[in-house]
């Protein structure tokens, strides 16, 4: 089909869109995982007030459409003085939104962890960061791996919404090609297959992590 030949000629734009999607998704996943990990202890904290606020935040993100959040951050916040460029707004919205999900995921995994091995860590002289890094975190990540993987796929797809704030990611690239060269089918189909490829990669990584976890179960 001629359309695909045109897409091939525009591959630089397509690939740059893909690269931006990858960067957005990677940064989004890592940052929201980090922030989520900081939020989880607050969620399970015995101090009522911070736990309440954290829970309401998670509920809010859970019930808000991501597209609307992106609009609010990019178009709405400037009216109260917070101006982001499209990358800043996109990353901010992506990380804010998904840190709530990551916090919930980690909380679920944490509740399911047995307490005794961590107590053993304390009894053997582990404390603070060393306890967290060597005793608490590895089993937690092994248990939460598949769910975190699913959330990563969700982040990849959410990144596509950011085309509405003119972020030059993959969907934006395909859109731009189709509007200039009038080949909507080819352009978007290629984009779809590229998203598919990304998701298959994440699923392969999750499968690998699952194998590691199963050997230890």
């Amino acid at each position, binding site marked *: 089909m001629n359309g695909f030949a045109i897409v091939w000629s525009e591959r630089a734009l397509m690939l740059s869109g893909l690269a931006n999607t990858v960067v957005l998704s990677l940064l989004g996943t890592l940052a929201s995982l980090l922030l989520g990990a900081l939020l989880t202890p607050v969620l399970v904290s015995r101090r009522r007030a911070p736990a309440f606020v954290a829970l309401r935040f998670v509920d809010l993100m859970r019930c808000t459409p991501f597209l609307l959040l992106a609009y609010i951050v990019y178009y709405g916040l400037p009216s109260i003085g917070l101006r982001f460029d499209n990358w800043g707004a996109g990353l901010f919205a992506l990380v804010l939104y998904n840190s709530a999900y990551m916090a919930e995921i980690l909380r679920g995994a944490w509740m399911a962890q*047995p307490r*005794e*091995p961590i*107590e*053993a*860590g*304390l*009894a*053997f*002289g*582990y*404390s*603070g960061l*060393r306890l967290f890094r*060597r*005793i608490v975190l*590895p*089993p937690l990540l*092994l248990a939460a791996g598949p769910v975190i993987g699913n959330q990563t796929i969700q982040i990849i797809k959410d990144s596509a919404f950011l085309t509405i704030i003119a972020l030059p990611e993959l969907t934006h690239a395909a859109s731009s090609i189709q509007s200039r060269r009038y080949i909507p089918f080819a352009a978007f189909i290629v984009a779809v297959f590229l998203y598919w490829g990304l998701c298959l990669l994440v699923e392969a990584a999750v499968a690998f992590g699952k194998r590691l976890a199963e*050997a*230890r*179960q």
Partner: protein
Amino acid sequence: MSVADLSTANTAQDPSAPPPLAATRPVLSIAGLVKRFGAHTVLDGIDLQVERGETVCLLGPSGSGKSTLLRCINWLEVPDAGRVLLEGETIGVSTGGVVMGDGQLSRMRTRIGMVFQHFALWPHLTVLQNVMEAPVHVQRRSVDEVREEARALLERVGLSAKHDAFPAHLSGGQKQRVGIARALAMKPSLMLFDEPTSALDPELVGEVLTVMRDLARDGLTMVVVTHEMSFARDVADRVVFMDAGAIVETGAPEEFFGAPRTERARQFLLRYSNGAATPGETR
């Protein structure tokens, strides 16, 4: 190879020589220990001393506070009053009454080995890695030296074939033996056993008790919370009977099991001797 060769805590090689002054100080000294959970007083003023090389068994009905007492020794539970001294140094509170920082408390904990009821092995590490983990990363000893000792310890508890297995693939008895090896790898001055065989199927209890009996014979200082009466009778140097948060009676096993002095001890022993004989004991 015996535990004595591996543990630097056991210094007396010649029993006929007069003990050096340091060796007469008790390894563990508990004074006036009180622990409350809310309105409920679980430990009501406990005084206890354990000498080097002694095996002390804590016996008593459920809820008597035995496990809580054990967990107060290494401050997994924080006592509300009283002192715990390890080889003359207070745990948890430095001289002057200031609560110890994490680092100091952790350092003291490395001198106390603990074996848990549900084994508490680290699931993401192999058997060998479990034994090597704390000596390498907390005590910062050389990896090669620790690996040698870990292999020797695992052989000692009969698990040389299982170095690269993950804990999930072991039986309960095997897991507990790894737990014992793991605690010994730290070369502790004192070993705490929190109902080490309570979570085991009856036929697996014996293999663990055998290891523990050998450790006691080799002169390891041990405090054991257990329901295994025959173990207490045959292996303990001293039995401490607790009920409702207080030490009711202590004595040599022959005295306690043969001629208990208090009524509560008598009733406790009656309950246990009327039931089935304690399972899993091997000779």
